[in-house]
């Protein structure tokens, strides 16, 4: 029985993928790796099928937007959980905003389906291989990706307030 901790996971991943792991750190004890977006499918399958790790539970997929980091504006963040070992892993992949795209995780996790659609809806990430990539929460007619930082939160039709009061 190997001791499964962050160090072990990191070693296993780097042994397999080498320089595709761009960086790694452990904020609040959760191993986080920045990974090559083109190999995300391989990484997920590797973790899923690994004898010891058995990271077979996709907790969460979400997107982020960093307008200032050129070439890596849009991020897709996976939280993977190994229920047997009770250890989590966070994988971050970045993709440029001009044509944000990444491979879909639906081949492995059914739960990725809607979460990826949500990420597409919010950030416009194109998940290659997704069976039904269209907007999920917003109306189909919407022509922008509302969670990107440049778009405003407000509806704009509200007439009964004066922003100067609210320090926003």
């Amino acid at each position, binding site marked *: 029985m190997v001791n499964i901790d962050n160090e072990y996971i990191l070693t296993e991943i780097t042994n397999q993928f080498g320089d595709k792991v761009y960086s790694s750190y452990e904020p609040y004890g959760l191993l986080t790796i920045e990974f090559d977006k083109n190999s995300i499918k391989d990484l997920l399958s590797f973790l899923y099928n690994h004898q010891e790790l058995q990271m077979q539970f996709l907790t969460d997929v979400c997107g982020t937007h960093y307008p200032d980091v050129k070439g890596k504006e849009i991020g897709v963040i996976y939280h993977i959980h190994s229920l*047997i070992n*009770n250890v989590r892993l966070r994988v971050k992949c970045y993709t440029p905003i001009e044509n944000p795209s990444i491979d879909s995780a639906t081949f492995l996790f059914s739960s990725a389906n809607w979460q990826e659609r949500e990420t597409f809806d919010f950030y416009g990430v194109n998940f290659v291989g997704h069976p039904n990539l269209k907007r999920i929460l917003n109306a189909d007619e919407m022509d922008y990706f509302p969670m990107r930082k440049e778009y405003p939160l407000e509806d704009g039709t509200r007439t*009964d*307030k004066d922003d100067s*009061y*609210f*320090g926003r």
Partner: protein
Amino acid sequence: MQLTNRSKVVSNKEMSFKEKLYIPAILSGMGVTFKHMFKKSVSLRYPEVTRQFSPVYRGMHVLKRDAEGRENCTACGLCAVSCPAEAITMDAAERKKGEEHLYREEKYAAKYEINMLRCIFCGLCEEACPKDAIYLTDRIVESNYKRNSFVFGKDVLVEKIEDRIDITKRKKSYKID
């Protein structure tokens, strides 16, 4: 998959012969409902009878006056800042000479409006107030027919000198070490 040692299976789908017969379970159910027919109703006849809300209930706001009848509010704007619904708006004004009996501080709110339709009664304004001025009370905001009748100004919010709103209980339970 066994992850912990604290699990226990609780669902038993096998029916005993008695349960298979339908009738006993139905009869016992009917017994329960019949028993309830003679139980005292728990209903509250609302408009005639009202319920005592808890002293800390978050209902309609009040702008307090101090013991001498002066308005406490100094129009610092913290309540507006802390409002997640952005429902509070105010205009500050300088207190002039001769108005000392009206306003406690040198600045006061010339206009103070809460949009009760926007308000979510979260109580953050009450917490934000550094001047003991705004409190939520255990009165409810009544419904009305027009949308713009819900912008409550100072005429509604500021308590009347002769008709003070009691918030002592609320203050008492409020954050004491």
